[in-house]
């Protein structure tokens, strides 16, 4: 308490770090190596990088939360105007919340499930002496109001699980604001949220910086960051590869890695098919769900992949599918119909809770619909008993969301693939396995590896290879890229697209991401509350959305500013030069982080 004055730093930065280095025992490389950054009042600085780039560790080191085993050092670390290089845990505690507050990614985990959000926020406020006992209630309501929570009086008394994801995130932001800290550190604050809510939270954070607060925004998502950041630092393998004013960096990136990240943002430059701004933009709140599905394109006119002779043949068809869960009978599916033709890619887009995953599971014959049926080649698929369906299962295969969970951790890649190749002799199986790996762009020597020895992208490729092994006609992909880094996402999407063209497999592609659907599908269903609100050609729907909900969805797609054509290595005069190697200077280890 003594080390940090109560007054804010008279001038200059809220936080300033030079040559930050964080390493963990047992790791060959430091997690963060030579990162320098500062945040001034009213400024939003974004730290962008893929998983493992060290961006979160950097943020945590700035508030003394790098972890017990972390070794943290820096040439300079100034927090709230005080030298924090020698901070102990007590001093850090006096800084956290009061001068710097943190907003975490997952509000459901970050909020205490046993306390009302009001109690949570009140504690944060009282802890830092922001209010006395009498003023607490009014203060909490005021904070919730500032965080954009509607009906703050009522919400205050609710528990985190009673709130939607967006409201939870707002409550978390309110508790971070409790002691009125001049600096907020937000670690992936919108990653767990649906697109529309994400846009709202980003606007809220933007308002906070406009009111003079500093914001350090950590994200993997350049498109999200582009909405807010004044300056952007791009991190890779623990080091900053490029930094500069947001506009310059986004429109005229100098470092190849930055350019690669920008290209990888789905629906942008990469393949020359950016999501266009909708022509009839509207922010009308989504209306009643009874709205009838709008068919933007008559059936059968969708342009398809390679062979037009295949167009007419329907492989998988769902008729009036209904499925309820739980005692109250929450309708996950409410009269959904779809047709998937041979070789076609059909997207199913919706936010969490829209029923799209249930649709995938029904299409796979994993869940039996309460009413309606799924037909495979015109024959019953969802109705028969599992025993009778099993012989035909090869025709409909599955690519799951989480590549980290989709393979038995005890299995080698060879066994994972082998399971999909029954009845083959050992040598034939190995040969076919290698061939499958080649098909998904992996070297054959991965066959002897186990899942934990592979990267996320490699695992997803293995999962795709497994799904291809039985020679399916339909590949149901449930959010196949949402667990992957942006650059890997783009690769996997291209792979799926190529495989469809090569093998003629039809894709039923489930995603929450309009930009992703744009990359791989030619027709799309928009789902909401278990119903299809709109159906039609992907391009048509994205450019001229008919249903108000679709319009809102399309409007919430985050866009990057239009970029200047890449001029290799040339980026004269625009902003700061990229940071090069660390400047050799004395280093002071920070005690506080070693506790």
């Amino acid at each position, binding site marked *: 308490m003594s080390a940090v004055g109560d007054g804010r730093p008279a001038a200059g930065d809220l936080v300033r770090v030079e040559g930050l280095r964080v*390493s963990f*025992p*047992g790791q060959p490389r430091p997690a963060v190596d030579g990162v320098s950054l500062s945040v001034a009042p009213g400024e939003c600085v974004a730290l962008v990088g893929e998983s493992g780039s060290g961006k979160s560790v950097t943020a945590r080191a700035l508030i003394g939360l790098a972890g017990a085993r972390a*070794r943290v*050092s820096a040439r300079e670390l100034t927090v709230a105007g005080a030298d924090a290089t020698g901070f102990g845990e007590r001093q850090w505690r006096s800084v956290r919340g009061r001068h710097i507050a943190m907003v975490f990614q997952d509000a459901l985990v970050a909020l205490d499930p046993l306390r009302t959000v009001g109690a949570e926020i009140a504690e944060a406020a009282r802890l830092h002496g922001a209010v006395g006992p009498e003023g607490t209630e009014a203060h909490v309501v005021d904070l919730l109001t500032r965080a954009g929570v509607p009906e703050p009086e009522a919400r205050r008394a609710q528990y985190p699980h009673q709130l939607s994801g967006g409201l939870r995130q707002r409550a978390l932001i309110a508790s971070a604001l409790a002691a009125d800290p001049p600096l907020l550190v937000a670690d992936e604050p919108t990653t767990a949220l649906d697109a529309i809510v994400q846009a709202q939270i980003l606007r809220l954070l933007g308002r906070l910086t406009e009111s003079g607060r500093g914001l350090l925004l950590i994200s993997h998502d350049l498109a999200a960051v582009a909405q807010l950041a004044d300056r952007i630092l791009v991190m890779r393998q623990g080091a900053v590869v490029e930094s500069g004013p947001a506009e310059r960096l986004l429109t005229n990136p100098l470092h190849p890695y930055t350019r690669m990240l920008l290209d990888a943002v789905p629906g942008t430059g990469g393949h020359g098919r950016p999501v266009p701004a909708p022509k009839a933009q509207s922010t009308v709140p989504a209306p009643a769900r009874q709205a009838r599905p709008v068919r933007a394109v008559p059936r059968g006119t969708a342009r398809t992949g390679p062979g037009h002779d295949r167009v007419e043949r329907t492989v998988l068809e769902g008729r009036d599918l209904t499925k309820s869960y739980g005692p109250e009978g929450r309708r996950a599916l409410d009269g959904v119909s779809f047709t998937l033709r041979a070789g076609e890619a059909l997207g199913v887009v919706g936010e969490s809770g829209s029923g799209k995953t249930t649709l995938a599971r029904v299409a*796979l014959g*994993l869940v039996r619909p309460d009413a309606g049926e799924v037909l495979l080649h015109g024959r019953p698929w969802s109705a028969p008993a599992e025993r009778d369906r*099993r*012989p035909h*299962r*090869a025709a*409909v*295969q*599955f690519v*799951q969301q*989480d590549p980290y*969970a*989709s*393979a*038995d*951790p*005890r*299995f080698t890649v060879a066994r994972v693939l082998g*399971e*999909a190749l*029954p009845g083959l002799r050992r040598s034939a199986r190995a040969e076919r396995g290698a061939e499958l790996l080649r098909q998904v762009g992996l070297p054959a020597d991965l066959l002897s590896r186990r899942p934990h020895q592979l990267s996320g992208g490699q695992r997803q490729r293995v*999962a795709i290879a*497994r799904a291809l*092994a*039985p020679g399916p006609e339909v590949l149901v992909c449930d959010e196949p890229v949402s667990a992957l880094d942006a650059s890997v996402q783009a690769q996997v999407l291209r792979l799926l697209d190529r495989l469809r063209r090569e093998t003629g497999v039809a894709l039923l592609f489930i995603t929450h991401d309009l930009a992703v659907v744009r990359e791989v599908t030619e027709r799309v269903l928009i789902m909401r509350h278990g119903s299809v609100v709109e159906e039609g050609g992907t391009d048509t729907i994205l450019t001229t959305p008919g249903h108000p909900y679709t319009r809102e969805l399309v409007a919430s797609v985050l866009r990057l500013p239009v970029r200047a054509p890449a001029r290799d290595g040339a980026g004269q005069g625009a902003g700061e030069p990229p940071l090069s190697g660390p400047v050799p200077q*004395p*280093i*002071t*280890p920070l005690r506080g982080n070693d506790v």
Partner: protein
Amino acid sequence: MSSAVTVLAETEAAVLTTGRVRPRSPLLAAAATLFVLLALVLAFPGLFTAHSPEATDVAAALRPPDGRHWLGTDQLGRDVYARLVYGTRLSVLIAVGATLIGVGGGALLGLLSACGGRRVDFALMRIVEVLLGFPELLLALLVVALLGGGTLNVAIALGIAGVPSYARLVRGQARLVLRSEYVEAARVLGVRPWRTVLRHVLPNVGGPLVVLASIGLGSAIVSGAGLSVLGLGPVPPDADWGAMVADGKDFLQTAWWISVFPGLAVTVLVVATTLAGRRLQLRAVR
């Protein structure tokens, strides 16, 4: 300033070296040695003592430990050390047998419960819960009362008493695995259910089961000895360690060595197996 750099370098070096070389617990090393010794005792008890465990010598009854009888003699003049060495076999046999029966039965019940549908699960788990309500020893006593005493029956009784907790573990683990995405993937591939159980469920349940069993082995040794103390174990003249403790109970004032040394043996073995079990558990967690 430059000293700060060297301090940092030194701490980093220390971190690197300690990170690689895991500190070895001397207790664990002792436990490992003990297991080797135990294996030898089990295989070749004759190597460890020249005395016969059953040779009585009334003239030499109730002798305290000395150079000839290392751990003294009992009321019939039998060598306590020799009886301890030969008794090892029975004690370990009961414990291992009980654990195998418990694990086997538990795995079967647990898998049935996890895979057998809602009704089977409900019925089996209610039974398991009732059984878990009784202390294990009490349950074992009940079974012994039904089956009668003796080495085999004690092992069976303890095994049955252990079934509920193993069943619970297996059911929980199996349900986790059955809900996993890789089992779902197998289902989509058309793999038959029993194959899924063999290939995915059993191997993935096996790890935690082995860990629990190795810890359970310790308690089986204690419970086995406990039943033997009550006279329900091996039939004389055979004696496991528990029976030996019981043999000496009338002489505790005058000849403490008859009971104390077998009791110590039980303690040491239990501590060693528990240590090893915990170690396995830690490795499994990592």
